[in-house]
């Protein structure tokens, strides 16, 4: 049982560290992979500098859109990227979080990506909101 407000995900990719850094920072590349399968990306804009904003416009299966966005907090090309992560335009908004991505070279052709997402900010009316958006997400992910 995992008991924390932190999400950890790690994955190995068949490309170099600098190539993987491009995949996670270039808008045209982000739009090709970001989000679970039931969501698609409509548009990505970013200003890749510390305190620069990024915006990822997502399309839900019903055609409506919402934005996942935030600010870049740390950029250490091609090793590390840290950014705030928030939802805009959803009736029920999940709490804000900070996402840190660390890239490590395994060998000349493979790179390990580690992602840590920490939820630190809790909306004041969390108690009322949580059930609604939880239900929405779980429906979307097919868990219910």
């Amino acid at each position, binding site marked *: 049982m995992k008991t924390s407000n932190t999400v950890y995900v790690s994955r190995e990719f068949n490309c170099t560290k600098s190539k993987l850094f491009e995949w996670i920072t270039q808008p045209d590349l982000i739009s090709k992979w970001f989000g679970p399968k039931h969501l698609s990306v409509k548009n990505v804009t970013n200003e890749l500098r510390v305190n620069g904003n990024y915006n990822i416009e997502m399309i839900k299966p019903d055609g409506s859109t919402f934005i996942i966005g935030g600010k870049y907090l740390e950029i250490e090309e091609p090793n590390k990227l840290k950014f705030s992560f928030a939802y805009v335009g959803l009736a029920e908004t999940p709490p804000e979080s900070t996402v840190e991505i660390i890239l490590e070279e395994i060998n000349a052709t493979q790179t390990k990506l580690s992602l840590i997402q920490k939820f630190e900010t809790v909306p004041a009316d969390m108690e009322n909101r949580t059930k609604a958006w*939880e239900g929405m997400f779980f429906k979307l992910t097919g868990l219910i």
Partner: protein
Amino acid sequence: MEKVFSALADNNRRKIIELLSKDDSTLLELSEQFSISFQALSKHIKILETAEIVTKKKQGKYRVLTLNRDTLKSPLEWITYYSQFWNSSFDNLEEEINKTGE
């Protein structure tokens, strides 16, 4: 729910939860696992009790701390959602990278 998140936003309290997830424990037993003072630990336990994550029950002359698993269910569910969000995204990324042969 908000209390639960505030309660979870601390390393010591997360460690308490982790230890209690393995087995019920008395405050004294827990204190052996921490370098912080007994008073500080009591304070953390109090916060966990207020958030209803931990319950204190009297067993004989001891007070035993138990983890309230139901309280943690909701936060754990949406943490699961986010793990899936990223895992699914990285499935796509893996596919794209392998496609380009980079």
